[in-house]
């Protein structure tokens, strides 16, 4: 094994930190790495200094590499050890402490230093710059006693410092030389909005103001401006800009202009010396933002491991980290004579957009107030895309591109490769496109290969659009979505054929309908089981092994494999005896969490599976039955107190809710069903976002349905008005049965209603008495066999005992 090469790094900011991360990942053993850091600490995220100053974060929160990291990667870190001299001929460095070390490769990452204008009084205690954690700590110390602060400089750093100090309780004035704030990134109208926002926070802004001197004898007492104004202050922060730290490089004889000159491989004028970060100048540009530094870090790590890689410069983009201020800028704002501007303002809404164009491509972006389109504009800028065609609507943002009826895939086509399509599984556009290009030409194939749209499914449309974008006419959107990959038939066909062909077991269905798998899958089996139960309530024998675990053991599985238990509390009403029984169960079984649910029930979480029957037994003694909180079935009926107590109540909503719940409980449905009954239109039971809701009014009852408050949010639709409680129960049970017979498995009422049509449902339930009665009669018949308490069956009659047994085998005994 050859000896390790010596790699010495001067400076320990974010750029070298990131570079070492890449380097140690690529080749851990090639270099013996030593870092000399002038700061007395490990690496932290300098971008997050403003949140530390404002108190939103602590130093510990922003550490990126702790001592362990250096140790694990075999890196020697000398803290508090600035380097004084580089001998490039002898390939050694000398630290301030006198230590000399030789190197094979040297990386200079000395960063930049804040500019301190040598005004009279600039050396007084209480005059600070804003650059590193020491500065932040010094400022925080000053801020403790409150008082007044002056920030000189109204650029990015100055405004963040002002905001932080204000939040620490100081009274802050910003003194800015130019006519308006952030003149490099904003034009006057935008700066005006920013100034207003800062003023609203209580920060005073003085523009066109030049500081003449800093006052004070032993410590700072204020500043005097050119026009003679005197501003008292206990703290003065100088935030007028940064300057690359190049002294060391200049001394070593390297080529230095504004920064240390580097080529595309981050190499300086000296063969074995590299530089990166804010201290370098690359193609005439010095960078002060983190994204380009990270790119440099990647390139340098590659260069140090002899890989081809080049840094090509970067488009700068900026966000201001001042709470409540949304500001984004990118690219070139100098606006020379051949550049054009597009500007949109909405002063009332506090929105400002400015795009700078040259030759029909975006070269600069400023967004204030609404930065939601920043990624899209930045992408257009980076791609140098010709925007002439949609120039007229460019300022309105991505959502406004394309006429209605134009190519529906345009929006998804416009998304960046890195845009996230499937939020559940974190799948971005490029991953999906690559899988399509690799031969996944159907929705199911893409799902299987990438997981996109396989969880909540709300991005299915986007995935289909990507398919049609990539495949054009070759992509045939499936007219019918199959139940699962085991069959080509959709839910509607399966339901129809079960009835038409008189199929009464799962095996028969799979045989008759030519299932492609021997015994289905976790998707189709629960669906078939439900369809058969619904179709043949008397004759069908429930296929227990085709139910999801929650419906098998009548409790909700939790992320650690324990279960939650929710007893039924009819209409959300309980009593001292019930609460006492629950408390006793919680104590006896040491149940870790007790929680009130949104459906007005009490949830006991963290129950071990083998203890479920005992828990149910104890609850059963107090009269509790299963709350079916786990079922694709009737869950809860939520009520308000109604006219029994409420001065606004028009009917006895509580009693009606309980009556409905006693009538409907135990029924299996395509998806869960939640009800609510409100005693007046104030709707305290929130009935208008439920699957079925009843609003009591003076003249009777308004029945609502098809609401949603989950993945989708949707107010209910009105089914109709009835005059008495008996009719409520009749209509609701008929509606339940119609949904039970027509809904696709896992399709909530609102989706079923959208598919079937609201008018069709209203006419069957409200207008056609025969039809309504037939549905209601079938529901009642089905309920006769459905309403038995599953908890009692398991705790008292020992049904499915194997689920709750807990055999334990000790190895010692086994060997004996």
């Amino acid at each position: 094994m050859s000896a390790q090469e010596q790699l010495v790094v001067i400076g320990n900011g974010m750029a070298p930190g990131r570079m070492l991360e890449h380097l140690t990942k690529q080749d851990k053993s090639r270099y013996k790495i030593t870092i000399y850091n002038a700061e007395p600490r490990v690496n932290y995220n300098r971008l997050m200094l403003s949140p530390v100053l404002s108190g939103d974060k602590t130093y510990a929160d922003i550490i990126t590499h702790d001592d362990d990291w250096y140790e694990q990667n075999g890196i020697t870190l000398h803290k508090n050890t600035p380097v004084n001299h580089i001998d490039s001929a002898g390939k050694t460095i000398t630290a301030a402490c006198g230590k000399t070390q030789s190197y094979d490769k040297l990386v200079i990452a000395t960063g930049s230093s804040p500019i301190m204008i040598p005004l009279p009084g600039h050396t007084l205690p209480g005059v600070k710059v804003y650059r590193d954690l020491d500065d932040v700590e010094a400022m925080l110390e000053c801020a403790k006693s409150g008082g007044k602060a002056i920030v000189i400089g109204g650029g990015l750093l100055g405004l963040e410092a002002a905001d932080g100090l204000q939040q620490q309780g100081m009274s802050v004035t910003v003194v800015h030389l130019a006519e308006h704030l952030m003149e490099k990134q904003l034009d006057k109208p935008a700066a005006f909005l920013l100034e207003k926002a800062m003023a609203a926070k209580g920060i005073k802004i003085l523009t066109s103001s030049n500081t003449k001197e800093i006052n004070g004898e032993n410590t700072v007492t204020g500043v005097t401006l050119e026009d003679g104004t005197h501003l008292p202050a206990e703290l003065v922060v100088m935030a007028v800009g940064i300057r690359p730290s190049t002294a060391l490089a200049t001394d070593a004889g390297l080529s230095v202009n504004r920064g240390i000159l580097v080529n595309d491989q981050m190499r300086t004028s000296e063969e074995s010396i590299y530089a990166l970060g804010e201290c370098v100048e690359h193609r005439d540009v010095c960078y002060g933002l983190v994204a380009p530094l990270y790119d440099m870090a990647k390139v340098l790590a590659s260069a140090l491991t002899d890989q081809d890689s080049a840094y090509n410069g970067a488009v700068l983009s900026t966000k201001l980290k001042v709470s409540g201020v949304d500001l984004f800028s990118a690219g070139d704002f100098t606006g020379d004579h051949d550049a054009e501007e597009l500007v949109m303002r909405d002063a009332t809404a506090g929105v400002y957009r400015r795009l700078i164009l040259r030759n029909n491509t975006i070269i600069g972006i400023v967004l204030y107030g609404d930065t939601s389109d920043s990624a899209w504009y930045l992408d257009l800028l980076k791609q140098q895309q010709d925007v002439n065609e949609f120039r007229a609507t460019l300022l309105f943002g991505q959502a406004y591109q394309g006429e209605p009826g134009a190519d529906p895939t345009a929006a998804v086509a416009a998304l960046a490769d890195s845009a996230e399509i499937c939020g559940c599984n974190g799948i971005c556009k490029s991953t999906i496109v690559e899988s399509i290009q690799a031969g996944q030409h159907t929705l199911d194939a893409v799902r299987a290969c990438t997981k996109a749209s396989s969880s909540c499914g709300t991005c299915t449309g986007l995935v289909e659009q990507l398919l049609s974008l990539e495949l054009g006419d070759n992509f045939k959107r499936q007219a019918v979505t199959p139940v699962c990959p085991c069959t080509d038939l959709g839910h509607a066909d399966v339901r129809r054929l079960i009835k038409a062909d008189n199929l009464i077991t799962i095996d028969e269905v799979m045989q008759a309908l030519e299932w492609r798998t021997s015994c289905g899958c976790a998707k189709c089996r629960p669906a078939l089981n439900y369809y058969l139960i619904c179709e043949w309530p008397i004759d069908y024998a429930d296929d227990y092994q085709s139910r999801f675990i929650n419906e098998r053991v009548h409790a909700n599985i939790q992320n650690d494999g324990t279960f939650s238990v929710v007893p039924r509390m009819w209409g959300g009403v309980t009593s001292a005896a019930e609460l006492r029984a629950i408390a006793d169960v919680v104590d006896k079984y040491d149940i870790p969490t007790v929680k009130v649910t949104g459906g007005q029930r009490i949830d006991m979480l963290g129950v071990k599976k083998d203890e479920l029957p005992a828990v149910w037994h104890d609850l059963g003694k107090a009269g509790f039955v299963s709350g079916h909180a786990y079922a694709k079935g009737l869950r809860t009926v939520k009520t308000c107190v109604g006219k029994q107590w409420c001065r606004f109540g028009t009917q006895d909503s509580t009693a009606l809710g309980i009556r409905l719940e006693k009538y409907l409980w135990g029924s299996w449905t395509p998806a869960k069903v939640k009800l609510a009954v409100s005693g007046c239109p104030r709707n305290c039971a929130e009935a208008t976002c439920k699957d079925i809701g009843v609003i009591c009014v003076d003249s009777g009852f308004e029945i609502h349905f098809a609401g949603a408050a989950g993945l989708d949010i949707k107010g209910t639709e009105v089914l109709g008005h009835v005059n008495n409680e008996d009719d409520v129960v009749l209509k609701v049970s008929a509606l339940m049965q119609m949904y039970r017979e027509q809904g696709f498995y896992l399709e909530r009422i609102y989706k079923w209603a959208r598919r079937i049509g609201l008018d069709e449902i209203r006419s069957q339930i409200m207008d056609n008495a025969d039809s309504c009665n037939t549905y209601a009669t079938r529901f009642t018949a089905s309920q006769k066999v459905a309403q038995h308490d599953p908890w009692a069956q398991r705790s008292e009659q020992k049904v499915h005992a194997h689920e709750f047994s807990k055999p334990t085998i000790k190895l010692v005994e086994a060997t004996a």
Partner: protein
Amino acid sequence: MNRSEQFWVRLCSIDEIPKRGAIRVELDQKQVAIFKTADDSIYVLDDACPHKGGPLSDGIVHDNCVTCPLHNWVISLEDGCATGADKGRTTRYKVLLKNGDVHVKPQLTVWLSQA
């Protein structure tokens, strides 16, 4: 080492396991799941999904696979590997069926810690 050849541990009777289902047994402080498929094949796996440790014995058994109850990963009972786009593997035990009982050979590390 020859001893370990005879070192089969009885877990349960084949009849105790529901068809297209599973039971769970604690084997020396470790949860193992014993599956029976539609064609009466028996498989024994650690009762933990490679994804988030979900109890596979609570899953739905179909063909020679089980679907984890927590996030629907489909684990092959043949080799313990996640199928489709998911990656991961659950430990699978060699099974001996004898006199109507299911036996496995526990992992050597477990055995040594007991010795």
